[in-house]
C-alpha cells in the first residue's frame, strides 16, 4: 500500500494539471473578440442604416454577377469525370469525360519529371482544330521507352485525338479518344477526352474565347 501512494499522488497531480490546461484552453478559446472585428468596426456598422447596407450588398452582388461568363461556357468536374455545357445556370448538355491520371513520370536519367494532372481554374478556348494531329511531346516517347526524335515530323500522330480538338492552355486540349472504353476514368496525361458525339457538340457550341472552368 505504501508503494501505491506516490503513484496515486502523481496521477492525481497529472490529472489536476490536465484539468487546469483544459479549463485554460476553454477560457482562451472563447474569451477574446474575433481578431478581425474591432470596436470601431462595430460602431461604424451600428451607425449604418439597414437600407444603405441592403443597397450596398445588392451592388456587390451585381458586381459579382458581372464576373460571370457571358453566353455558353464549359464546366469540367474532374472528380465525377463529367463535362457540362452551361448557359448561365442552365445545363445545356453533359458528357462523360476523362481527365488527368495524377500519375508521375520521371525521365530515366532523373532530369525531368511530369505530373499528369488536369489543370484547375478558369481557362478559355484558345484554338479549335478539325482532324487534329498530335505532336507528341517528349514524355510520350519516354513513357513508351522510345528515343526522343529530333525531327518534328517523327512526332506527329494522326487520329489519336479524335475528330476535333479545343486548346485551352499551354498544351492542354479537349479532344477525342481511341480508347472509348476508358471514358469516365482518369487516364489522360492532363487533357480532357470526350466521346465522338459529345466532342462534336462541344466543338459546335464553344467558340474561341469560351470560358472553361475546371475543378
Amino acid at each position: 500500500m505504501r508503494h501505491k501512494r506516490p503513484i496515486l499522488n502523481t496521477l492525481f497531480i497529472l490529472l489536476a494539471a490536465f484539468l487546469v490546461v483544459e479549463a485554460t484552453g476553454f477560457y482562451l478559446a472563447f474569451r477574446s473578440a474575433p481578431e478581425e472585428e474591432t470596436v470601431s468596426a462595430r460602431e461604424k456598422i451600428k451607425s449604418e442604416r439597414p437600407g444603405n447596407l441592403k443597397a450596398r450588398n445588392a451592388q456587390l452582388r451585381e458586381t459579382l454577377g458581372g464576373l460571370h461568363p457571358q453566353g455558353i461556357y464549359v464546366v469540367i468536374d474532374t472528380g465525377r469525370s463529367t463535362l457540362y455545357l452551361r448557359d448561365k445556370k442552365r445545363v445545356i448538355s453533359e458528357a462523360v469525360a476523362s481527365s488527368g491520371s495524377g500519375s508521375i513520370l520521371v525521365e530515366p536519367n532523373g532530369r525531368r519529371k511530369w505530373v499528369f494532372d488536369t489543370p484547375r481554374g478558369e481557362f478559355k478556348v484558345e484554338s479549335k482544330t478539325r482532324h487534329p494531329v498530335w505532336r507528341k511531346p517528349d514524355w510520350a516517347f519516354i513513357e513508351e521507352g522510345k528515343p526522343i526524335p529530333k525531327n518534328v515530323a517523327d512526332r506527329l500522330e494522326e487520329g489519336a485525338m479524335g475528330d476535333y480538338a479545343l486548346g485551352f492552355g499551354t498544351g492542354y486540349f479537349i479532344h477525342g479518344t481511341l480508347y472509348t472504353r476508358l471514358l469516365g476514368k482518369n487516364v489522360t496525361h492532363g487533357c480532357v477526352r470526350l466521346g465522338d458525339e459529345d466532342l462534336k457538340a462541344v466543338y459546335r457550341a464553344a467558340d474561341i474565347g469560351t470560358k472553361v472552368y475546371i475543378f
Partner: protein
Amino acid sequence: MKCLRWMPLLFILLTGSEAVSGENDSLKYENQLLETELRIAHTPQVYSIFDLKNKRIWLKARGLLLRELNIETFRVWGNLPAVKAGTLIRKSALFPPRRVLVNPKAGDEEAQPSVETLELKDMPTNYTLVLEGNVSISVRPKPTRLLSSLWSIRYPVQWYLGRPVLTVWHALWRKPFASIEIVLEESDARSLYWSFLEGMKAIVFSPRSRP
C-alpha cells in the same frame, strides 16, 4: 402606476431595436462575405466558401457556383470572425492518396493506356484542412452503419479533450487558433478533398460562431 402605462411602449421600443440590430448584423455579415468573395473572384482560380450559417460548401469561380455540398453537422471551436478568408496551406489525412509512378516501358513492349490512376474513390473521407491563420477544418464522414456510429464517438472526445490543449499550445506561441469540425456524406467528403487543392482560397462564413 403612471409608469406602468409606458411599459408596453418601452417593451415595443426595446424589442424593435433588438430586431433592427439583428437585421443590421445579418446585413453586415453578408456585406463582409460579398466584399471578401469579390476580392477573390477577381482571380481566375477556383475557391470555396464554407457557409456554416446555411450548412453548405460552395465551390466557385468568378462568383459562379460550380458545385454545392451539404454539411450534415458542424461545430466551431474558438472565436472565429464572422468572415474568415485564407489560403489552404495543407491537407492532412491518415491515409492520403498516393500518386502512381509510371514505369517507362521497354522499347519492344506495346504501348497500352495506363489504368492505375487516381480516382475520386481513392480520396480519404477523414482529413484535416489547414488554412492560413491557424484555422483547421476537420472533415469527417457521416456514419452510415452501427459500427461506424459507435466508432465515431471518439470525435467529440477528441474535440473536447484535444482542442483546449491545442488552444493553450498556440497561445504559448502567441498564435491564434480556431477549429471547425464538419460532417459530410462520404461522397461529398471525397469530392471536397479532390477539388480543394493546396493554394486555393477559402472563405469561412460563420456569423453565429460566437458563444
